């Protein structure tokens, strides 16, 4: 269970938000919304342990994620604004290396299965720099399928995706939630995701 207690965020000398509380159960989806500059990305970065809250605490199964650190990182996948893919590497190399970095070493067969599912079949050996923006996002999202983690933290996952890819990602998220996974995401688009447990978190 992921829990935020009175979380506050300060950027420079400006307070973005304070007193934010949330909790997310197995199979739950947490949608973070708010206008530009309200600190959505900052909150997501705190949730995955990249930065510390100015005050308050984020807990995973009752323990502060700061003390868990690597143990917590092993069960989360974060996909941010930056895709985290290397232009000079091929699609398969990117997927294999980023999964290995997340602690899941996958074979090239696994990789090509995942890439087929995400709609990049036939492009496995192209360097990423020749791909379109939407295809790069798909390379990043492929990591969700390759790594068997519980908590997915996604910052604007639907940006730059075409209709088919949006539909595909929606199905992937729904399947993950059905299997007791957890998803935290921000999005500006109206997207209906079927899940038993949806929590909204509004930042002002």
């Amino acid at each position, binding site marked *: 269970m992921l829990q935020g207690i009175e979380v506050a965020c300060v950027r420079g000398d400006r307070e973005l938000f304070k007193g934010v509380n949330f909790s997310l159960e197995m199979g739950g989806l947490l949608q973070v919304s708010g206008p530009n500059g309200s600190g959505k990305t900052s909150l997501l970065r705190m949730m*995955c*342990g990249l930065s510390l809250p100015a005050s308050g605490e984020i807990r995973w199964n009752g323990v502060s994620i700061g003390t868990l650190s690597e143990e917590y*990182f092993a069960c989360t996948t974060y996909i941010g*604004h*930056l895709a985290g893919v*290397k232009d*000079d*590497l091929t699609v398969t*190399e990117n997927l294999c290396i980023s999964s290995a*970095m997340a602690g899941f070493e996958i074979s090239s067969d696994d990789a090509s299965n995942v890439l087929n599912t995400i709609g990049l079949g036939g492009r496995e050996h192209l360097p990423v720099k020749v791909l379109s923006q939407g295809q790069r996002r798909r390379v990043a999202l492929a990591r969700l399928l390759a790594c068997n983690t519980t908590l997915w933290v996604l910052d604007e996952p639907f940006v730059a995706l075409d209709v088919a890819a949006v539909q595909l990602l929606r199905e992937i998220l729904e399947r993950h939630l059905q299997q007791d996974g957890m998803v935290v995401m921000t999005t500006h688009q109206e997207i209906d995701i079927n899940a038993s447990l949806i929590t909204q978190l509004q930042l002002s």
Partner: protein
Amino acid sequence: MFLWIIKRDLLLAVRRRSDVLITLFFFVIVVSLFPLSVGPEMNLLRTMAPGVVWVAALLASMLSLNRMFSSDYQDGTLEQMLISPQSLSFLVLGKTLAHWLVTGLPLVLMAPVLGIQYDLPGDALFVLVISLLIGTPVLSLIGAIGAALTLGLRGGGVLVSLLVLPLYIPILIFGSGAVEANMAGVDFAAHLSLIGAFFFVSLVFAPWVAAWSLRVSLE
């Protein structure tokens, strides 16, 4: 994992060969400038050679420091490294080692050729190569801290030299000192053992400090 990261960085370097060559050519050009500015008098050049080669090696490894983390920072890979369940210190150590293989090792291999330009005797060439071989990894290790601290800052390239060059001084002193001692017919083993000591100390502490600096810089 450690091997993964080295393999990845080497693969990236191979795909971007020009970056490696730039550092190497910079080293060669700087060393070749000195005879042009102080004159071709061989005795003078011979006494200057260890210092010149070492200072040029220092500057060349500085030049490439910025690239150690910045491309990973720009495309978001560094964020992924920070939240990887692997130990960040080991990742940094892997990246540092890859950085040395790509930028430090070519300097070591090129050094004898440049030493010949300065008419260094065979023994001295040997000592020069050995001192660079132990010394340049220390430059990469200490440099990793500076590169991590200046990540994403304006003027990061110049700033990193302000931070790191003073810390390079002991290596410079003992590195060129070893070659000078050899040329003066004095025992040079003490110099090399001291550089070796610096190497082990920085091998243990520098990746850890650099990992910490990365967390600070990306927060």
